[in-house]
């Protein structure tokens, strides 16, 4: 399935069984600059849409990753602990943050498609 986007520059990729993969967009990584540390959420922890789930530290500053959807964390990208710059190099691939099991799949309908997201960037 194709990616969905939030206004906070996160992407969500629907997988099977109400599970989504979550990361930040190319635009977000470019704005943040060199990422040096990522603090990921704990597996099994639950969040509401818009809660802070992760902290992204660039050389410049710390910023929060907000939960793009409500649900519980089923997996995190452990590789980011040693190689946080992967988020800069491949934000929509190897630089993913976590997998969330949706508690309310209908929230996906409120996210933007690629055309909608591109429109807010201009």
């Amino acid at each position: 399935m194709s990616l969905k986007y939030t206004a906070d520059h996160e992407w969500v990729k629907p997988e099977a069984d109400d599970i989504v993969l979550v990361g930040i967009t190319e635009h977000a990584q470019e704005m943040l600059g060199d990422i040096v540390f990522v603090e990921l959420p704990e597996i099994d922890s639950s969040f509401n849409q818009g809660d802070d789930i992760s902290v992204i530290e660039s050389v410049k500053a710390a910023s929060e990753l907000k939960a793009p959807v409500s649900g519980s964390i089923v997996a995190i990208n452990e590789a980011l602990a040693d190689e946080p710059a992967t988020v800069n190099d491949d934000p929509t691939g190897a630089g993913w943050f976590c997998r969330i099991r949706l508690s309310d799949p209908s929230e996906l309908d409120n996210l933007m498609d690629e055309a909608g997201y591109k429109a807010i960037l201009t």
Partner: protein
Amino acid sequence: MNEEQLLKTPLHDLHLELGGKMVGFAGYHMPVQFPLGIMGEHKHTRSKAGLFDVSHMGQVTIHGANAALDFESLVPVDIFDLKPLTQRYALFTNDQGGIDDDLMVSNAGDHLFVVVNAACKDRDLEHMRSNLSDCNVKMLEDRALLALQGPAAASVMARIAPETSDMVFMDWRPLDINGIRCFAGRAGYTGEDGFEISIPADAADDFARKLLAEDEVEMIGLGARDSLRLEAGLCLYGHDLDSTTTPVEANLLWSMQKVRRADGERAGGFPGAEVIFNQLANGASRKRVGFDVVGRAPVREGAELQDGKGNKVGQITSGGFGPTLEAPVAMGYVSNEYSTIGTGLVALVRNREIKVNVAKMPMVEQRYHRG
């Protein structure tokens, strides 16, 4: 402050042309980074040469029959014996012994040339004018200030201005660069060898382009300037120093020559001398120190330092990621009893405890050219 009120340096167009990400800083439009990125700019400066626009800083000349002696009434520093064509780090102190700004003072032969921080320059100018009544204090509004820093800075400068090649760290002199009157000091704010060059505003763009045309030189933004100075253990005014920190607390006693101390020939006579001498004799209650941070999470300005039992013992004043160290780096103030190198403390970051150890500064070796 809104965008329109921000001032532009003589290199503003060049910054935009080079893709600089512009921010407001001390009332100026300044580039925080270029497309190379903070990490890349930092590493480039340490390995080759970085060009910095620091034209926002205040450049001041002080003329007067006894300018050097008069200036000593404002700083706890030996200015009278400062040799012609050399420069020195100094501090403006206040009546409480606190630091109102840090600055560079050059003996230009028949006058003093002073460079002060951008955010303090109006206050500093007023301070000098009202206290140096026998001197003519003039802010040079029509000059840019560029810094060329890094191991290749000297060879690049030697190609453009050969007379710089016999300068050593803290030398300062007027230079003629293609008929343009410049002043250059062999110093900087990165811990590397390099130069700071004052040049007429209308010649700055050409000069910067000429430097950038050299293979080794890249334009560097404020972001890398901050990470470079932090690794080098250098203070940022308004963060690591302010009007409540004394030179003793700030661990800047090296900048106070013996001749101005309590038993010196020209002891005291600067604002706050009693407080500072008292701290020198009896110790201050807190001290600025550097920290190694355990793990990868940066510990930033404002983070509380604790003794591990939940008692607050200090605070981080500058912190971030050190690209040369490939690790977080920080400095801050701690109660005196926790200031010994190796002391283990805890920094609170988002309510998590991050282990830090008091460390020797600078974190990255300074590589000044002392001849």
